[in-house]
């Protein structure tokens, strides 16, 4: 069985698959890849099941070595990946030899980059998932971000796969967006018409406080003095809550499972992967869509992700 050695961890690198749903009643959010679209594409490129675990890097990537020859795919944002100095194309499978140095640098585009390997990262499963939940110290590699010297197991490779890449045409339909589509949140009626209009009209900047738990935004302050307090309730992934400060917070993959701030809107399922690519100082806007429109966009995204034409031999 091959292994992956961490020579440099980068700023925040964790083992992630598609998450561990089903523990909401204990207060544990599913975690999982912040940009699941990129993880799924990477896994398809190397012939893994879509839910295989990979490395998720954040803003600044690390340096890694494989103990045996490996087929890898780098997806998500461009972190300037190289193998022994030779550039590795994004969204394409590539062979690397044993002990070559696979290096990543600072991001040139969005917040997260994925290193997928054929066979997957096979740290032990916890409740059916290999995802790291940093806040609770659950799952992944010892429940934490990777450190220099960590050695991770790689699954046995059962079949050979030819070199593959992503169809540029279909990728353009999956690429991360800065105009995030939202549906009305459960407390939408509690906000005044002028607050709703301002929320939808203005640009919001991503602040430095953007992580796997949530993303704080900065824009023109909404006056929350008349909106009142509410009883804490379950919050969904992508909920946009409005605390008394009047500056919104998008709840993300390691989110709190319940909360007491009113939710003005919720990012639609099809745009959640885009949230995973937002980095500090990016500017975003929100566009309101109906539940029916959101559902159609989600179905369309899934159709593209499942399409055989997405991957070109």
């Amino acid at each position: 069985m091959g292994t992956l050695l961490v020579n440099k961890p980068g700023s925040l690198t964790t083992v992630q698959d598609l998450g561990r749903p089903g523990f909401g009643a204990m207060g544990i959010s599913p975690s999982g890849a912040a940009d699941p679209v990129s993880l799924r594409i990477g896994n398809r490129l190397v012939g893994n099941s879509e839910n295989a675990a990979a490395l998720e890097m954040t803003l600044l990537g690390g340096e890694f070595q494989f103990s045996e020859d490996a087929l890898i795919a780098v997806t998500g944002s461009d972190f300037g990946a190289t193998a022994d100095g030779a550039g590795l194309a994004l969204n394409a499978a590539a062979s690397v030899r044993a002990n070559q140095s696979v290096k990543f640098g600072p991001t040139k585009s969005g917040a997260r980059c994925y290193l997928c390997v054929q066979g997957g990262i096979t740290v032990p499963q916890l409740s059916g998932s290999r995802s790291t939940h940093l806040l609770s110290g659950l799952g992944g590699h010892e429940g934490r971000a990777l450190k220099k010297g960590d050695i991770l197991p790689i699954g046995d490779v059962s079949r050979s796969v030819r070199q593959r890449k992503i169809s540029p045409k279909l990728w353009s339909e999956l690429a991360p967006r800065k105009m995030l589509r939202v549906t009305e949140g459960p407390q939408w009626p509690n906000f005044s018409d002028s607050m709703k209009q301002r929320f939808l009209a203005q640009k919001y900047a991503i602040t430095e406080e953007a992580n796997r738990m949530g993303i704080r935004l900065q824009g023109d302050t909404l006056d929350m003095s008349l909106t009142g307090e509410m009883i804490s309730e379950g919050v969904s992934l992508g909920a946009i809550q409005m605390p008394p400060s009047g500056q919104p917070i998008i709840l993300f993959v390691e989110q709190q499972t319940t909360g007491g701030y009113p939710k003005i809107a919720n990012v639609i399922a099809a745009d959640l992967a885009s949230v995973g690519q937002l980095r500090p100082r990016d500017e975003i806007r929100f566009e309101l869509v109906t539940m029916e429109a959101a559902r159609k966009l989600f179905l369309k995204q899934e159709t593209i992700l499942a399409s055989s034409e997405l991957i070109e031999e």
Partner: protein
Amino acid sequence: MTPHLRENFRFQAASDQSLLVYFGEKISIETHRRIVRFLKLLEAKRLNALQNIHPAYCSVLVKFDALKFTHSEIESLLTPYLARLEDVKLSEPRVRKIPVCYGGEFGPDIVEVASLRKIAVEEVIRLHSSAEYTVYFLGFVPGFAYLGGLPEQLTTPRLDVPQKKVPAGSVAIGGGQTGVYPVSTPGGWRLIGQTPLKLFRPDAQEQSFLAIGDEVRFEPITKEKFAELAEA
């Protein structure tokens, strides 16, 4: 849906892949018990359409696969469960005691809570530690118990700007609610004390010290006792 059910429940879409079921509009032990009954029914007869369940004071949020189901289909699947709540028998609650060192460095906001409510700090401690609480649900972060039963005299508004880092074990008040932070996390409640107990252990068989439906009491302890228990 029957008119009887209509009076007792309200469905509200929360996102394109989740639905809130409201069991009432106020925090009460009756509403809580109906939620516990609902969870017991779901435990006894799993509904595979549901991928995640988040109970809270007056509501349960359910996450579903939006590629397969619409909100109204989920409502139809849940309605037979909601109609059978009165059939469920609840057992006696387990009692859990939580030692707390109130005030000082452990509870930096206790002075403000006292002054907002125009009572002495000692009175805040006496009121908080003499009440009997019920674990209404676990939520927010792993193992965080939302407790019902906070004396009305201790109700204090949440902080306008949540704190970026609340220490693990902090005992806090937010509005009419109280709870203990099991892990260090951002938080918007006012800190009145801290427990040396570890309420969430990722490596333990029973990860959370508290479970939905438990009865909880807080016992004031000294700094010395805190240090002793923290080392144990």
